[in-house]
């Protein structure tokens, strides 16, 4: 297991309220700002920019005002011209890209931690794009070691960075921290405490990494996004004909085998999983995904080897 040297982490951003009704981030960001006011800049190993990503949606306690902000960060949308009819969130994405990016350049923030909640029973799930980004892989490994109150998993989306649509893709090493289950529009203390601990663990890792010591590699289990599954729908009205089966509800990251129940129709029939390959469902019954035609996503579990890494000042 060789050693990979990587640049020291210089700047980090913590973003909340990317979806205005996912309240943990909405309240954690001002709390971090309060901590900084009280204890000064030496509180954290690197300067941390705190951002309320979608203030208009936060004010209305809605996911978004015109368009889902967390789908506006593709290179194409970030470079599109702004006109009178440009949705609010597209303009905001371009502002955030100026502030924290620009995406894909040397000036981009080193780490973005974007805070999200889900109505699905997903514990603390780290979401990212690249499976060869060793900083992210090590942060995940460290979170898994340090967070014991809830299960910690990593989901990797196999999308090239220019097509990556979410806010954290603006950074060199971007992650979403998704904590659930929590209803939208609610802030639960237990979920808040987990997210707060998660952010502190990430800051802790940065301190260790920046100190120059060798961070040992390991084997880690990750979930690679494979595809989405929609509800069975009425062909005419497009209304769902079934609900997530009670045996699948809350069972995020379980292993689905052929024949396992997926949906229960309103007339009482069970629709089963009919694929050959066993896969792992997640985002099961996420409220915001009804309009996106998603009942749950499926992932393949994989073991990745991450190398030893060490920070170098350049």
């Amino acid at each position, binding site marked *: 297991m060789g050693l990979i040297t990587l640049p020291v982490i210089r700047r980090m951003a913590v973003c909340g309220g990317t979806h205005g009704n996912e309240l943990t981030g909405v309240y954690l960001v001002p709390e971090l700002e309060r901590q900084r006011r009280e204890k000064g800049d030496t509180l954290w190993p690197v300067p941390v920019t705190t951002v309320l990503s979608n203030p208009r949606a936060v004010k209305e306690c809605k996911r978004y005002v015109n368009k889902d902000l967390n789908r506006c960060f593709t290179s194409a949308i970030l470079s599109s011209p702004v006109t009178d009819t440009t949705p609010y969130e597209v303009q905001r994405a371009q502002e955030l890209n100026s502030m924290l990016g620009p995406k894909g350049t040397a000036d981009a923030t080193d780490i973005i931690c974007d805070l999200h909640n889900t109505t699905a029973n997903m514990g603390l799930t780290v979401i990212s794009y690249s499976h060869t980004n060793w900083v992210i892989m090590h942060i995940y490994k460290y979170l898994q070691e340090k967070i014991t109150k809830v299960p910690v998993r990593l989901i990797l989306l196999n999308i090239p960075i220019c097509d990556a649509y979410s806010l954290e893709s603006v950074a060199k090493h971007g992650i979403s921290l998704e904590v659930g289950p929590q209803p*939208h529009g609610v802030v639960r203390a237990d979920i808040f405490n987990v997210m707060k601990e998660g952010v502190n663990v990430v800051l802790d890792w940065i301190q260790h990494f920046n100190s120059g010591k060798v961070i040992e590699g390991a084997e880690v289990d990750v979930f690679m996004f494979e595809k989405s599954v929609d509800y069975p729908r009425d062909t005419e009205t497009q209304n769902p004909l079934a*609900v997530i089966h009670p045996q699948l509800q809350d069972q995020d990251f379980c292993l689905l085998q052929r024949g396992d129940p997926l949906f229960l129709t309103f007339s009482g029939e069970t629709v089963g999983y009919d694929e050959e390959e066993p896969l792992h469902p997640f985002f099961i019954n996420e409220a915001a995904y009804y309009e996106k035609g998603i009942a749950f996503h499926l992932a393949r579990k994989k073991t990745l080897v991450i190398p030893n890494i060490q920070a170098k000042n350049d």
Partner: protein
Amino acid sequence: MQTGLLYNAVQTSGHLGWGTVAMSSPCNAACFPRVRRVAIFGGTHGNEMSGITLVNMWMKNGAEVQRNGVLTKPFITNPGAVEKCTRYIDTDLNRAFTPENLSTPSGDGLPYEVQRAKEINQLFGPKGSPDAYDVIFDLHNTTSNMGSTLILESSTDHFNLQMVHYIKKAAAPESCAVLLNEHPQLRYATTRSVSTHPVGLEVGPQPQGVLRSNIFESMRMIVKHALDFIELFNSGVEFPTCTVEAFRVHESVDYPRDTNGNITAMVHPRLQDCDWEPLNPGDPMFQTFDGWSIPYAGDGPVYPAFINEAAYYEKQQAFVATRRETLAAAAIRKASE
């Protein structure tokens, strides 16, 4: 003693039915007219999915909710909000049935829900009149861990008291709490209040915009028990005097807030999800964002409900404090026709 009890029951019951109580004929029970028309409301809040789904299902095929001799009408009360999967468009429909709103002249400038309230009052009321629907069940969900809850607005509607007593027994061992909101300041003008016997059905926990199978089935079962009761009542069964354990709304408790009105603390992890469990003075109630615990400082134990309900942040309520009470239900039966 029996006659005296009957007289008291008749005197104080607000909704006994106009002129049809058999006061002149000997009757060992309080008599109520046959239940002719029942409505089942869904979508009063457009993001509370169990009721919306059940009512849509029953509108397509109403066999499950039909009972002999009763007209059962499933109905979506706030279609505009349902379309957008939002609680309301302009104003909360379930607070809109005030005398002012119901008597205000129709016009273009009216908030969507006020116009809707007037329409619903015409279709299922008018509120307070003998032409109103006999019973309305209004189906709701909550993000709070309240299980199945029946909500009453009067402690002297003996028909309703007997109905919830029946439902609770039929649902057992599944528990079903009874919440009574008769508080002069905290009660509100509900959609179902256009009927003679309004009953709220609240099932949680379920996030807004989400349909959970277990919650859906619980609500479906409660409606079934309620309709069974009505069918039995209409067939002439007499329901003997009984008692109903209920939680009476006592006080609304808000979050601690700063001068800008923002909350400065969350429901404490030890209170979260503990609906209907006693909260004693000194018990942890809130946790500030920086980790401090704020205890409950009331003068006696209360039973909290609607703990951390999403829709109540804007109504300045973290939970409602209730007190336990045993309500007495007079014996009832159908008046002879």
